């Protein structure tokens, strides 16, 4: 696991170090060039001084001047006086016998006895002398090195101090994050109260807002789940209460007629409850599954005949199918289509008066079923696809889930359910339409 603090610390240390290294490099280079400049000027000055001391022609210089007692940078400067015919007239202590520099006037660099020298030469034809003053380049480098080392030494003391400072600053700076983390860690799974964004700094607020947004979504999903579960429990408890009551009656009843009546009602109730459970499962499955790819095509007539066969149709209610449906091919997977049609079919049959018939018809972009029931009051139409909504004209055995399932499954097919009351006569027309 990566720590944000360690990461920031490393980045800050690396950045500070890089800047410092650049600064050191720059100081090194600029000190060096400045130093060379100064030393070159000194070389030239020293050469002129020696030259001015040399009288024309006869030089009364000690052939070998005494060495100056050493300092750290001892024998830095060496001096040679040459006659024009190439004779070494005089030299300072420590100066080599070989010529230090070029015979021409000006600066030159040359390696003598394996040691590099920087030399200034003055050529005086009048006096007949050549004065050379040289500097050991090795010494010059040491000078620059010492200078830079002097600059760098405190730096290496400061770096750890800086590291500690950065670490502490980060610790303080990241405190709001720690506070949020502590807050979140201390919560139990039920606690979906939003985090307080007011106390958080601006940088942490987007994170807190995102977490709060997630909390809200999770909370809404859980509330929805709770509602559905509560509703399902409620819808199951009523038939269970009916079953228990009828069972107790069957046990307590003295006469056979009462007992048989109760047992028959238990059978009806068990069927109805089984259907409710089937619908609840279908609904849960629809909610849990992802939308599917729509490639298959199913023949509407055959599917409807299958649906009609599966659903219990009371004896005195007819079911008629438009022959045009045989030619209609519906897009979507067979299972989902079956779910839609079965729920529409059962809904239509539930609301039928005895002796009528429901009719499945083909539409230009779908199909519909028409019943002869009481229809749905206009103000209830938008609500009938809500879970467990049962309107004023509800059937005795309905669960309030059929149209919910049909409309959810239709959406999965990329289609929609349209409900309207029939115009010419009472009844509902429920259509499955592709747009």
């Amino acid at each position, binding site marked *: 696991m990566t720590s944000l603090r360690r990461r920031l610390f490393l980045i800050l240390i690396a950045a500070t170090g890089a800047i410092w290294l650049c600064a050191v490099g720059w100081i090194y280079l600029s000190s060096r060039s400045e130093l060379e400049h100064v030393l070159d000027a000194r070389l030239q000055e020293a050469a002129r001084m020696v030259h001015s001391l040399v009288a024309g022609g006869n030089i009364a210089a000690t052939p070998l001047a005494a060495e100056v007692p050493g300092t750290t940078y001892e024998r830095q400067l060496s001096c040679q006086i040459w006659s024009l015919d190439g004779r070494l007239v005089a030299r300072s202590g420590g100066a080599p016998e070989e010529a230090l520099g070029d015979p021409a006037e000006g600066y030159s660099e040359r390696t003598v006895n394996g040691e590099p020298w920087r030399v200034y030469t003055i050529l005086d034809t009048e006096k007949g002398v050549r004065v050379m003053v040289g500097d050991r380049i090795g010494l010059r480098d040491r000078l620059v090195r010492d200078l830079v080392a002097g600059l760098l030494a405190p730096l290496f003391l400061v770096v750890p101090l800086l590291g500690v400072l950065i670490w502490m600053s980060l610790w303080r700076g990241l405190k709001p994050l720690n506070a949020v983390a502590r807050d979140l860690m201390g919560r139990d799974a039920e606690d979906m109260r939003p985090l307080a964004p007011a106390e958080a700094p601006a940088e942490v607020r987007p994170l807190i807002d995102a977490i709060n947004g997630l909390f809200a979504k999770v909370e809404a999903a859980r509330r929805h789940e709770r509602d559905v579960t*509560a509703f399902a429990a409620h819808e199951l408890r009523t038939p269970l*209460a009916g079953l*228990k009551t009828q069972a107790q009656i069957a046990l307590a009843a003295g006469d056979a007629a009462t007992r048989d009546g*109760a047992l028959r009602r238990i059978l009806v109730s068990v069927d109805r409850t089984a259907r409710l459970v089937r619908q609840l499962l279908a609904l849960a499955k629809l909610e849990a599954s992802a939308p599917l790819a729509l490639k298959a095509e199913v023949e509407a007539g055959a599917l409807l005949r299958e649906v009609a066969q599966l659903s219990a149709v009371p004896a005195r209610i007819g079911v008629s199918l438009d022959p045009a449906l045989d030619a209609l091919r519906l897009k979507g997977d067979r299972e989902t289509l079956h779910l839609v049609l079965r729920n529409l079919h059962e809904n239509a049959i539930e609301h039928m008066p005895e002796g009528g018939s429901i009719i499945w018809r083909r539409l230009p972009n779908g199909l519909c079923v028409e019943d002869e029931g009481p229809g749905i009051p206009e103000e209830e139409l938008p609500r009938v696809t809500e879970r467990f909504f049962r309107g004023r004209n509800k059937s005795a055995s309905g669960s309030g889930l059929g149209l919910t399932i049909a409309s959810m499954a239709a959406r999965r097919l990329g289609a929609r359910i349209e409900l309207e009351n029939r115009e010419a006569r009472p009844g509902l027309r429920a259509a499955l339409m592709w747009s």
Partner: protein
Amino acid sequence: MRILVVEDDPILMDGLKVGLGLAGATVDDVATCADARAALAASRFDAVVLDLMLPDGSGLDLLAAMRARDDATPVLLLTALDEAPDRVRGLDAGADDYLGKPFDLDELAARVRAIARRGQGRAGPVLKAGGLVLDPATLSATVEGRPVGLSRREFAVLAALMERPGVIRSKAEIEERLYGWQEEVESNTVEVHIHNLRVKVGRQFIETVRGLGYRVRRPA
């Protein structure tokens, strides 16, 4: 004991009707708030068993409306929502008792008897008048400690008279206690039941007040 049951599930409704009938109650059933309002306006009930989720509204609203017009009929709420807050809301809206679905039929009958007798201003579980004792829980009667076999209807007639000893009950009132709306009222049945009761428990208990009805003498 005449009970109004407001419940929209047909099978549960049938069960309540038959089950409470076995427990000695006369049950009228309605499936909507509107019908319940009409029933309450038309007749007097000893208790109401009220489902909370009805197709045309909430049973709580019906209950609140009843209490608002000072209808003191005892109400037992019957619902699938039986979390504590739901129960509290129901009781605070004026309900006398609360039972979650699914329930035990015997318990329901006992609770209905309990709120009904409280509604009649009684605390004791049995009805007494002189040496005559009626136990609505077991539908049994004793005269001076001697058990007497009564039919369900006879028991209902006697219970109606003994709930308020000394008060005259008209024939119509007694009929209302005996029959639900859907039941055909047979003529002269009250007279026949009174006659049979006098034979079974003794003439001295039931007095005929000519032109007004019947009463059970208040114990001295």
